């Protein structure tokens, strides 16, 4: 897909490749990579570094060995029947990783007020990830972040103090950023958004509603 201008920075891509990124952020990255050949290629390159680390790791350490019967057990298990986990395919604007998080079902939208809707995909102590639906021209209440927030556009576009984000673009907001994203006029903006900490709203009403909406 062309026209993507906001990509994944290396530190997030390396942490993802190395398996050291929380589930919520990993979902946003896997979804962006599904839409962005540039980042897919960059991930491949980082995995090449990971492969080099694996290749050379034990070369310097002869003391590492695997128990002798493990290979025999494995060779015996090769023909065992097995069930592949279900695979999901892209459906409309939702790439395969989002469909997997949705369990293959359409999103269950819940109103957040002002026409904004959300569908929570997962919510836990290590962060949460949700789909957001923002009608064209509508603003999301002015907010800051206690941690990191990744927002990936799946449909439409939004703009805020830092720039414009169209389909496939990923915004990275950290604790420095107070922003008021506004959806472009036209079709609703649908985003995949992950956070590792609660958002900080400036005005009272959204703050009051935070526990209810789990944002």
């Amino acid at each position: 897909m062309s026209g993507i201008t906001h990509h994944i920075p290396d530190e997030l891509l390396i942490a993802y490749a190395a398996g050291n990124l929380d589930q919520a952020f990993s979902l946003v990255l896997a979804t962006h990579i599904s839409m962005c050949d540039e980042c897919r290629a960059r991930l491949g390159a980082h995995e090449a570094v990971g492969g080099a680390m694996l290749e050379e790791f034990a070369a310097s350490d002869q003391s590492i060995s695997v128990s002798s019967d493990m290979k025999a057990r494995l060779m015996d298990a090769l023909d065992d029947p097995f069930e592949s986990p279900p695979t999901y395919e892209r459906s409309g604007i939702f790439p395969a990783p989002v469909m997997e998080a949705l369990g293959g079902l359409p999103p269950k939208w819940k109103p957040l007020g002002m026409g904004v809707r959300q569908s929570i995909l997962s919510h836990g102590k290590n962060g949460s990830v949700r789909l957001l639906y923002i009608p064209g021209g509508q603003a999301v209440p002015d907010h800051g972040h206690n941690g990191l927030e990744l927002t990936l556009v799946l449909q439409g576009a939004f703009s805020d103090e830092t720039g414009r984000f169209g389909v496939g673009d990923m915004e990275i907001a950290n604790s420095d950023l107070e922003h008021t994203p506004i959806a472009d006029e036209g079709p609703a903006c649908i985003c995949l958004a992950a956070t590792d900490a609660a958002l900080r709203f400036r005005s009272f009403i959204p703050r009051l509603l935070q526990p209810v909406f789990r944002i």
Partner: protein
Amino acid sequence: MLELDVEPALEVPASPVRVREDTSRLRERKDVDKTKPSEQTPSEQTLWMLAVRDKRDRVAFGQLFDHFAPRLKGVICRSGIPPGQAEDIVQDVMLTVWRKAHLFDPQRAQVSSWIYQIARNRQIDVIRKERRPVPEELKQPEEVQEDASQIVALEQETTRLREALARLKPAQREMVEKAYLGELSHSDIRAETGLPLGTIKSRIRLGLERLRHELKGTETT
């Protein structure tokens, strides 16, 4: 940050070899080329993996196991997992290699990179008891024609990457290991100025160009 060295032109074999249909031809070529530097043929690991993929070759799988199982155990133990559980994960990873062999594409990833990625996924699946989100698979064209020169070129780039990593100062090398073996968070990586990202990026640049080219060829939309 290091400058990008001038790379020698790649030696491309005159005629592309169709690997999918006949990997044995590659083996023969390897025998013929024994006296020359190994640059003309894919590495042993790639040939083993292709034999597993195309012929379900158990002997080749055993060789892959002998090569990778101790390495996998080493990196898994390093992340603090006890040896017994590490062996379970190694077994799980190698079984996944056997079962998902049809997805191996030597033009896009080296065997070591492919297995690294499987190991990271399996480790997370087992430890966190949740499936790590992975990007959707690219649609494979119906008729796959693999080009031995492409495979070899990717391996040459990886070799140069490894040489560059080997030239790092011990402290930098340690940071790279920590970052890629999952011991640094994204904010650590961002803050870590000793991490030679410049070297890594300049070394993987050619690989990136190739991957981008490959990806363009597989785009279906």
